[in-house]
């Protein structure tokens, strides 16, 4: 039974590798350019990256200290 399942496992592995080898790929330069473009396009909306005016970030609300 074990030899049978080893064989089945190997067949599945070979089928899986064949599937992966046939995937359509693009060049890294193009993929990188697209990633970069996405970052730059959305950079202005990214509060953690550029920071937003103190008033509009609810977590950074200006807290006033009252000296008693």
């Amino acid at each position, binding site marked *: 039974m074990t030899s049978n399942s080893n064989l089945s496992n190997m067949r599945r592995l070979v089928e899986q590798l064949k599937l992966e080898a046939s995937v359509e790929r693009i060049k890294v330069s193009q993929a990188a*350019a697209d990633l970069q473009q996405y970052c730059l396009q959305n950079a202005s909306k990214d509060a953690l990256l550029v920071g937003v005016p103190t008033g509009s970030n609810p977590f950074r609300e200006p807290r006033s200290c009252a000296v008693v």
Partner: protein
Amino acid sequence: MCDQTFLAATFGPCDSCGKASPLMNIYVKNEPINYCSFCVEMMACQGLQSGETLTSLKKESENLKKKLEEERGKLTDVELHQVAEKVEAVAALSIKTRRVLKGHGNKVLCVDWCKDKRRVVSSSQDGKIIVWDAFTLNKEHGVTLPCTWVMACAYAPSGCAVACGGLDNKCSVVPLSLDRNENLAAKKKSVAMHTNYVSGCTFTSSDMQLLTSSGDGTCALWDVESGQLLQSFHGHTADVLSLDLAPSETGNTFVSGGCDMKANVWDMRSGQNIQSFDSHVSDINCVKYYPSGDAFASASDDATCRFYDLRADREVAVYQKDSIVFGASSVDFSLSGRLLFAGYNDYTINVWDVLKGNRISILFGHENRVSRVRVSPDGTALCSASWDNTLRIWA
């Protein structure tokens, strides 16, 4: 809407391997048989073609692996950080701890934001789930589960329920009610059933379907209402520690990472493993999609985080430093995808520049290892969960 047909499934001992698991009721030559989905696949692969032996298959798999590497190598004309050289460096960040959420009695293992950008749900080793309002530090709901080590929790897209799972091998959905006096634990409903611990869970685009990953090496898609198994995903050869769903515009895929050091991308409808990446040298603790859906990052015990592009089908960046020797437990991207927040076992969160590959800053504050980091849905804040029993909101 639902125009797909799924095979009816029951739960019980499999006719072929004897293990108790969700079964597929299929008919072979008009005879009904109940096999678990793994045995169904094995059955489909049996029946050798002439001339095949174990050695010939091994050789073929080695050749295919080599061919795969070659194909991937052919398209590597340039590195990501080289393309990003002309981009302006990120200015110094002014991210600080703005809130500390105290209330758990033991290590906080998981956290998830609600779509309303202010509530978070967290789960802990002490078996408790707490829903917090992050603005006011108010604890809105608390549920005690009968098991310890609740490793996974997720907020439903509607904000009306949370899912949680862990050492009880199940993933349950708890509807949240506005009535403070109601006992939420009584309304808890078990949806997913695995044969080992549940390491990760997430709702799909609606409250109706739940995707889980488990220590039994599989991921599974469940219907919340009926508890039925809709699809199971086999391919990992060890515990699956994390999963992430592709951002909605890009379709029905998800990525999972596990102790077999592999990150696999799956098609949710067919259950097929479409792509696989194995450049890590230790367990992958967390995987997270890039906001555009074309790439994903992974965090591993080998102290590196890596960035993989799905269309180029390869790793395009490694985020590591000689001074970082502790494993990374969790990663998340900022809204634009420019920043990668990674939580480490040395109690810090490192902020990496995704494009250029350098570390921008370190966030100190936790007093024990960081177990999970999550950026809020609108990108205004980062929530981190730690073994020091607290959660911190950074903004």
